[in-house]
């Protein structure tokens, strides 16, 4: 595959599929069926293509790979530049594996405007993949913002009863952050004269006083995306109203854009501000873990509960990133990947019930193990992964983060670790109320266990969860060189600016 613009292929193939779907005409049922199949095949082929990235990726180097460059707007030095390193590569795969799963999960549950729905999903995939591959600020920003639009539509058109409120809340929250980020990007451009991310990563040389403002502007955007407390309230609403597949992508990939942003921009380009604001991030992360875990405990709506648990899990991510230690950063990235799989799976788990009973309320269920033993097992596996049981993917990320945080601040480590107890509390309590107990409710008496399509959806996710838990090395190896490089650059930059400030204090030297 050498010489092929592999990343561009992976990025834009879904868009081609979408365009193809748009041309489908005819009877409604036929159109819907064709749209489903085209979308499924497109996303599957995209996934297969992205496997070439996985296998072709050279581990042990922090260089960008599969780089493509095409001059775009020469007047401003803007280039269409794509490439992946150990940090972004696996997010591309996360997006490409979740998309076909989402399309399968929407197979029967989406009944109206199927064509448009599939188009939206494929467009979303293009934008997500492009976001993680873009190595120039301009395409990056376009992808980053572009993601909002299909997601907004998916929630707003195929969502639940309060979908419009949620969609707007989602849109406004994230847009407010994005505007500030745009300003920050412009400021960086005017300061350094380039929008080339690769160049900027090696040291942007932005003066510390300016870094503070730029950092805050980026933070506004990324913190909303993660989401961090207290700008997380859009997430439960968006999740509750979004269709199952929308929640899956939202939790699985979109939340990672915030964490990815921190890793790609805040840390390497604004190192002094990162050091300055790290305590703030720790504080917010600790609050996120404890606060949202407690809130999750009080939920009566399954989707809301999982949405809040997402906020808590992402708290581990933000804390891990700002430890700037090997374990903390790798733990954070791993936690993002793991959460991408586990939270996505949990939303699918809820979706299975919603498809059958059309309710997300916990009280509508109980005793399902009697009629749905396979479902109970699947749910159990993902619940345990969410709780962070060793041997599942959830443990690796969480534990690495705790190990990383411990080296920086033991208080933060202790408070983060309480999330282990609270997380177990709300998940076990949920599981008990839904799965265990006597089967007494009339509408559950004839409920059916997982069918083949649903088993096919969950099987790859279960494999991933266990693989990541038992042999995480195959994933950590991918990222370690890039993470090492990131930490090295960061420490160098900090040392430099300290030397400078010392030099400013004693001009004689």
């Amino acid at each position, binding site marked *: 595959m050498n010489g092929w613009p592999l990343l561009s292929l992976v990025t834009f193939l879904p868009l081609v599929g979408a365009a193809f779907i748009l041309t489908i005409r005819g009877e409604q049922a036929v159109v819907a069926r064709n749209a489903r199949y085209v979308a499924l095949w497109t996303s599957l082929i995209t996934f297969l293509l992205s496997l070439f990235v996985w296998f072709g990726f050279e581990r042990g180097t922090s260089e960008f790979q599969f780089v493509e460059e095409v001059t775009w707007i020469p007047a401003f030095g803007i280039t269409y530049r794509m490439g992946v390193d150990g940090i972004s590569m696996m997010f591309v795969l996360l997006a490409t594996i979740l998309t076909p799963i989402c399309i399968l999960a929407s197979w029967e549950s989406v009944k109206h405007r199927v064509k448009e729905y599939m188009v939206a999903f494929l467009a979303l995939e293009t934008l997500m993949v492009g976001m993680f591959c873009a190595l120039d600020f301009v395409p990056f920003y376009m992808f980053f913002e572009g993601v909002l639009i299909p997601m907004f539509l998916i929630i707003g058109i195929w969502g639940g009863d309060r979908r419009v409120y949620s969609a707007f*809340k989602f849109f*406004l*929250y994230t847009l407010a952050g994005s505007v500030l980020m745009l300003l920050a990007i412009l400021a960086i451009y005017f300061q350094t004269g380039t929008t080339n991310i690769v160049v900027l990563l090696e040291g942007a040389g932005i003066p510390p006083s300016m870094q503070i403002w730029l950092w805050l502007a980026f933070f506004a955007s990324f913190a909303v995306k993660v989401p961090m407390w*207290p*700008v997380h*309230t*859009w997430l*439960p609403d968006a999740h509750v109203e979004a269709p199952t597949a929308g929640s899956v992508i939202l939790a699985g990939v979109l939340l990672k854009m915030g964490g990815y942003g921190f890793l790609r921009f805040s840390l390497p380009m604004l190192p002094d501000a990162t050091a300055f604001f790290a305590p703030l991030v720790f504080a917010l992360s600790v609050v996120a873990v404890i*606060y949202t875990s*407690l*809130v*999750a*405990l*009080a*939920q009566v709506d399954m989707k809301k509960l999982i949405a809040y648990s997402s906020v808590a899990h992402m708290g581990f991510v933000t804390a891990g990133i700002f430890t700037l*230690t*090997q*374990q903390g950063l*790798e*733990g954070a990235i791993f936690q993002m990947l793991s959460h991408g799989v586990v939270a996505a799976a949990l939303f699918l788990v809820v979706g299975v019930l919603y498809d059958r009973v059309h309710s997300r309320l916990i009280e509508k269920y109980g*005793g399902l193990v009697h009629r749905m033993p396979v479902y109970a097992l699947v749910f159990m596996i993902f619940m*345990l992964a969410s709780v962070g*049981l*060793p*041997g599942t993917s959830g*443990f*690796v990320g969480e*534990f*690495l983060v*705790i*190990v990383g*945080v*411990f*080296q920086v601040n*033991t*208080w933060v*480590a*202790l408070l983060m*670790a*309480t999330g*282990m*107890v*609270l997380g*177990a*509390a709300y998940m*076990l*309590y949920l599981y*008990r109320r839904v*799965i*265990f*107990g*006597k089967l007494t409710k009339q509408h559950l008496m004839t409920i059916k266990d997982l069918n083949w399509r649903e088993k096919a959806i969950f099987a790859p996710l279960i494999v991933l969860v266990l693989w990541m838990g*038992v*042999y*995480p*090395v195959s994933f*950590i*190896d991918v990222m*370690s060189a890039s993470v*090492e490089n990131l930490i090295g650059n960061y420490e160098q930059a900090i040392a430099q600016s300290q030397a400078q400030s010392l030099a400013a204090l004693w001009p004689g030297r």
Partner: protein
Amino acid sequence: MEVVAVFLPLAGAILAGLFGARLGDRGAQYVTSGLLLLATLLSIIVFFDVAVGGNARTTELFTWFSSGAFEFSWAVRADTLSAVMLVVVTLVSAMVHVYSIGYMSHDASIPRFFAYLSLFTFFMLMLVTADNFVQLFFGWEGVGLASYLLIGFWYEKPSANAAAIKAFLVNRVGDVAFALGIAGIFFVFGSVTFDAVFAAAPEMADTTFTFIGIEAQTLNIIAILLFIGAMGKSAQLGLHTWLPDAMEGPTPVSALIHAATMVTAGVFLMVRVSPILEFAPAALLLITIIGAATAFFAATIGLTQYDIKRVIAYSTCSQLGYMMFAIGVSAYSAAMFHLMTHAFFKALLFLGAGSVIHALANEQDMRKMGGVWRMIPLTYGLMWIGSLALAGIPPFAGYFSKDVILEAAFAAQSSHGYFAFWLGIAAAFMTAFYSWRLLFMTFHGKPRASKEVMSHVHESPKIMTVPLIVLAVGSVLAGWLGYSAFVGDAREAFWGASIFVLPENDTVELAHYVPLWVQILPIIIAVSGIVLAYVMYITRPDLPGMVTSRIRPLYLFVYNKWYFDELYNAVFVRPASYLGHGLWRVGDGAVIDGIGPDGIAATTRDLARRVSRLQTGYLYHYAFVMLVGVVVFVTWYLFTQIG
């Protein structure tokens, strides 16, 4: 070979769990039990090779974590400590598997039960054969999961579900400390493998470290964090509340997990880290005090309970206290000795109790038993053996191990050693008393069960009694056979490098030279406990009622388990759910959304309404607004340009 022994139960669990429907009940029982018996056989061979032959070794399977220096493998470590645990775990587990074929024969989901049992055994074996802290933690959490699944095995019962969740959560509290301890070990030592950490431990003895604002000796902090983890799993005072509730699970589960193996994982962990503990005097002090207090406290509750399984559960809790304070006085080998003998006689007692429950149509309340000893003589005799071993009557197993613990505590010649010794003596008295109270109430006196039940009382089938007999043989012989190797003259050769004791802390050695009265006192105490039980429950059955009414407040305090559950409910459980609701409604709803998006939206709507009022349609209004705009812009321009 040890690798095969570890993974056989996993194979059994997967076969029975995923293909239970195809295997059928019979198939699942035979596959899991057969594999476990095989694993037991292998373990015994490994034991002789490693502990007797002195061939300690570690087999690395493949890398698990590799994040910077945080690097280690899945591994199977076989040293004497692991080998002892291997034999204890597989043997008791195999017996429980076989016993369960009979005990659970009427249950609706037999393959699931056996899958869980085997899964538990796998995790336990991973725990004891770990060669690094994280794999130990894997097994640790894994047995917690299996325990959760098995306590909640009868998932239709709300009480079983509640007990299962409680067990998991209380254990998790300890696990938080354990996890932090591992993080601390990595931070301090730069490694989490046992060999590297233990080798470097002496050098760290004089360093200090600040944890959550407390500056203390590094190893003390780490050891105390690990000990808090061990407290959760081994049900030590404060984190013990889950254990009695765990009796909601089927009785074989109580025998395997909540008596013989899982609850001893904390003890095992503490013995495993003896090279750290030896340099952590403050941690040892704390362990002694908590252990002794647990031994005493749990025994008091055992005196008053009526549920036959709960009496034994509190007895387990109390015996774990003995093991812990043995560790506290550096008598690690004595703790392991007691762990081993205890596994035999406590499993025997639980399974015997199960046999009684089985005979009496699932009755667990001792007030509804009595007068059945002639009908189930074998069970009765086996329960006697178990009780004699538990009470420490020579020559039964418990005598050897409990005695050496008490002697070591005395020989430590420290104030906390004496504290532990006297509380241990008091607990020994109570142990003997409640054991015979149990025997007398269950088997003697007038029958208190209904005629219907009494007419069906029967001895259990062979499939249940044979495992009991095996365990009974262990309860009789294990102490006598193991004494020399575990705590006697041969102990140094036996343990090899798996236990580390500083020469000046060698209380097991000193235990052999304590005064005669220290050696005899436990026996006298035990016998007098039995006699008192005989007086109160056989000769004067009216006495217990009189005594309890005389000291009613104290009795209620003890009967209600020192009100720990009520305290924790008031301090942790209720506030957590109250806080959750509050934060959700007020924090997220009123404050964040109110000021944030909803507030802004409302303000915007408000503004828009005012703006629309401005849209009057008159040209001069717009002109005026435009003019104002121009003025503002010009002013701003001037200020910024000139200023």
